[in-house]
């Protein structure tokens, strides 16, 4: 019963989805203000989801069963991820050994669900989006995992989120050390790609391949993908906060840190042009990985 409550209401689906949709509104509003526009009202993303639920769902000819199953896979696993993360962050004593690795794996599944769904859509533009999404996934996962290992080394080899938090409560946030700061920068860049924000949104490039991976989706499956995106907008920054800014996690400070990470992501999004896929891959496997390795070396030296 308690598990179900955690999964569906707090800190799982209902809580994370509402916060995520509001964060999505924040993204649109700040983008609008940066472009000197007024921007949509706060309930805009909720309205979008409700509207999509009322639309017709079209299954293209030649699509397989996975076309409709993939959105659920992505959403359910991401809700699980939000629950595990939220349990460690909001409720004490709920964390279990190895949940860092569970969260890491579950964070990848939405991208994989997108790949599975779009590749069974029988659309050439969708398959271009899929190939880009796959390469991007390969690109950012490597430095992201290295920066994660940096944190694990700094916390004395624990792979439990609560232990990482309590270590930071004792010794100060990870970001205030040399290796931690480097790993934080790497993680923020990888987060940008994970969220699919602009320098790395080539998988969904609206102007270029017309929505790419999402091109054939309509109605309910599209709404589920939008919800997944909203959940990712919560889970990603919260994960980074857990890893790097875990000293004061009272409600107010947590909110401030979350807003800060969100604003950083939105500012990067609004001030950069879209990269080509090979540029992004070069970027992630070149400078970012080198930076992450540098952080790893510093961490093992104890800096």
């Amino acid at each position, binding site marked *: 019963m308690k598990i179900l409550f955690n999964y569906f209401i707090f800190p799982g689906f209902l809580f994370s989805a509402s916060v995520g949709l509001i964060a999505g509104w924040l993204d649109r509003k700040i983008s*609008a203000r940066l472009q000197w526009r*007024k921007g949509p009202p706060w309930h805009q993303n909720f309205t*979008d989801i*409700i509207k999509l639920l009322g639309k*017709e769902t*079209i299954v293209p000819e030649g699509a397989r069963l996975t076309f409709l199953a993939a959105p659920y896979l992505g959403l359910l696993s991401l809700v699980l991820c939000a629950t595990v993360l939220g349990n460690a962050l909001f409720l004490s004593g709920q964390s279990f050994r190895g949940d860092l690795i569970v969260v890491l794996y579950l964070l990848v599944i939405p991208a994989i669900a997108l790949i599975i769904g779009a590749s069974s859509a029988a659309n050439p533009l969708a398959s271009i989006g899929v190939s880009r999404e796959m390469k991007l996934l390969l690109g950012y996962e490597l430095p992201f995992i290295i920066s994660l290992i940096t944190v694990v080394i700094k916390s004395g080899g624990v792979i439990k989120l609560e232990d990482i938090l309590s270590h930071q409560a004792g010794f100060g946030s990870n970001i205030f050390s040399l290796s931690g700061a480097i790993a934080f920068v790497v993680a923020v860049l990888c987060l940008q790609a994970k969220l699919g924000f602009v320098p790395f949104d080539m998988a969904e490039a609206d102007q270029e391949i*017309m*929505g790419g991976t999402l091109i054939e989706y309509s109605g309910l499956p599209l709404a589920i993908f939008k919800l997944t995106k909203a959940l990712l907008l919560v889970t990603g920054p919260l994960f980074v906060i857990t890893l790097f800014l875990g000293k004061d996690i009272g409600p107010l400070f947590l909110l401030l840190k979350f807003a800060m990470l969100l604003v950083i992501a939105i500012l990067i999004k609004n001030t950069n042009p879209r990269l080509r896929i090979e540029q992004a891959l070069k970027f992630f496997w070149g400078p970012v990985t080198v930076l992450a390795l540098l952080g790893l070396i510093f961490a093992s030296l104890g800096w």
Partner: protein
Amino acid sequence: MDFRLKALTKSIWIFHASVGSCNNCDIETLDCFTPRFDLERFGIQLIGSLRHADVLLITGAMNRKAVVRMKRLYEQAPKPCLVVACGTCACSQHMFKESYNVREPLDKILPVDLYIPGCPPKPEAIISGVIKLLNKVKRGK
């Protein structure tokens, strides 16, 4: 009033299809999303894929080749889908009335919900048209 209909009026996603227009209507349509007019205030967005669309906004005269494509586009769009004819070319045939290439106006081919005349229509005219469309949907189409 229907809950879904209400949500639809608050979040309209537009697919912009240009069928052989002179690009003036397209430019004026895009102007509606610039800082001065900013249709995103009302939740109106331009989207890339037709499968996400609520409104099919058509500019330009329907020439012979476009007719087939437009019919297919309309069939591909998820349904409740509204059709807007933007500019005099799409509303009637304008100066292509006697043309060998433009056989019939748009409303003989698709069920048009809204006409926005003008060559090109001003962004103000387009916005006022959008409001009329919203009122029409609210009254229950």
